[in-house]
């Protein structure tokens, strides 16, 4: 099946139905192995078991950024190639990316409590994730406000691209803002080199969460396609009874 065939939503649905159980299964297996390795991983000599929050926190940060990446590619697909599935992919990625960003923030706060003695400090990395989360909320608000999915398509694509261009600038300014106010005294997470006994489980967990992202993303795309079909069928119903 060529990639171009996937432009047809019906073919895509067939593919998703075939792939999704396997993808979900692989995700579960990798998760099982990853969790087994995480349990076996050593605790930090200072933080104790608290350091295990990292196995949730770091994948959350990665997937929050990857989610916006998916939306950016989808936005290009919408604006440049006018691919019929691109908009669906972008719309499906937004809430999932937002959820992972939220996981990163929430675990960051829980991790911060024992480390900083407070749930939140305006640490450069955490703050950047917060700004990413705000951007996601804006995107969700855009989808939420537009009652007609066809109208929100291009607006959301433009917002995704603007966000993608802006994220590095925001990241830079937040770093600069942070050093301006708190020169180097902040405890930085993961600053030092990580031992492989921690790194390998972390990579496996990141892979597991990435697989989970795509499982959810495919399922969400399928739901969105079906939702749009229901919508057009209901419109057809209204039109037919008009004659």
């Amino acid at each position: 099946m060529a990639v171009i065939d996937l432009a047809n939503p019906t073919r895509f649905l067939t593919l998703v139905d075939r792939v999704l159980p396997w993808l979900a299964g692989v995700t579960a297996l990798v998760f099982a192995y990853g969790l087994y390795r995480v349990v076996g991983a050593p605790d930090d000599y200072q933080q104790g078991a608290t350091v295990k929050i990292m196995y949730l926190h770091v994948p959350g940060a990665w997937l929050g950024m990857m989610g916006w990446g998916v939306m950016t590619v989808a936005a290009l697909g919408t604006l440049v190639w006018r691919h019929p599935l691109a908009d669906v992919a972008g719309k499906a990625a937004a809430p999932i990316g937002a959820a992972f960003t939220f996981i990163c923030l929430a675990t960051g706060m829980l991790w911060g409590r024992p480390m900083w003695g407070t749930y939140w400090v305006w640490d450069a990395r955490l703050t950047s994730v917060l700004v990413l989360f705000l951007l996601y909320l804006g995107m969700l608000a855009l989808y939420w406000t537009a009652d007609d999915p066809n109208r929100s398509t291009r607006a959301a694509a433009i917002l995704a691209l603007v966000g993608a261009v802006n994220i590095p600038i925001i990241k830079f300014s937040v770093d600069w803002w942070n050093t301006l106010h708190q020169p180097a005294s902040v405890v930085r997470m993961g600053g030092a080199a990580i031992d492989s006994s921690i790194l390998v489980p972390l990579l496996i967990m990141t892979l597991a969460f990435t697989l989970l992202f795509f499982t959810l993303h495919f399922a969400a795309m399928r739901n969105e396609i079906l939702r749009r079909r229901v919508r057009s069928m209901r419109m057809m119903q209204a039109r037919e009874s008009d004659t």
Partner: protein
Amino acid sequence: MSPFLALLARDMRLAVRVGGGALMGALFYFIVVAMMPFAIGPDLNLLARIGPAILWLGALLASLLALDRLFATDHEDGSLDLLMMGAMPLELAVAAKAIAHWLTTAVPLIVITPVLGLMLNIDMSSMGWVALTLLAGTPALTFIGLIGAALAVALRRGGLLLAVLVLPLTIPVLIFGVAAANAALVGPAPFGPPFTILCALSLASLVLGPVAAAAALRQGLE
């Protein structure tokens, strides 16, 4: 169901359906408050000291800006005409809409306040008191803003006009809201007096807001 409850239920349903503005107020509040430290700096002690003021200003702006479309949509699609022709006094209809708006906009805003309090380094144990001042004070903001929303429709203008008309009227609410929140957090002044005045302001605007808004809508008839 009485007409009052029917209108209340309709407005709440519209707010939570696609295209409704139920969570927009809370979202705006979250963003405004989260942006303050970028201007002020991440000094946790300073943030803790001015935290209640930041929360209250954010809540004030969010409550008022979200009111912009309260009557405008009903005016544009002809619903407002029919609302005026019901057997129920227009004052009550206006109050029903305001209560629905408060429930869908201000309540989510109060619910997320503790999270924002964490970001501003406000002491967890007193966070409930700050949320309580918002619970007592936001009805006043909604019902005072109601007058502005009605005037904006009567004048066929929206947006910033509402804020310009109404913001000065909300100064007492801001004063006593922040005073009560500060009293709860740091003292030494007692919490009771400013909080009681805040409640009184809310109760008074609960009566005055609908009456003035209904009068403004009637004046604007065309």
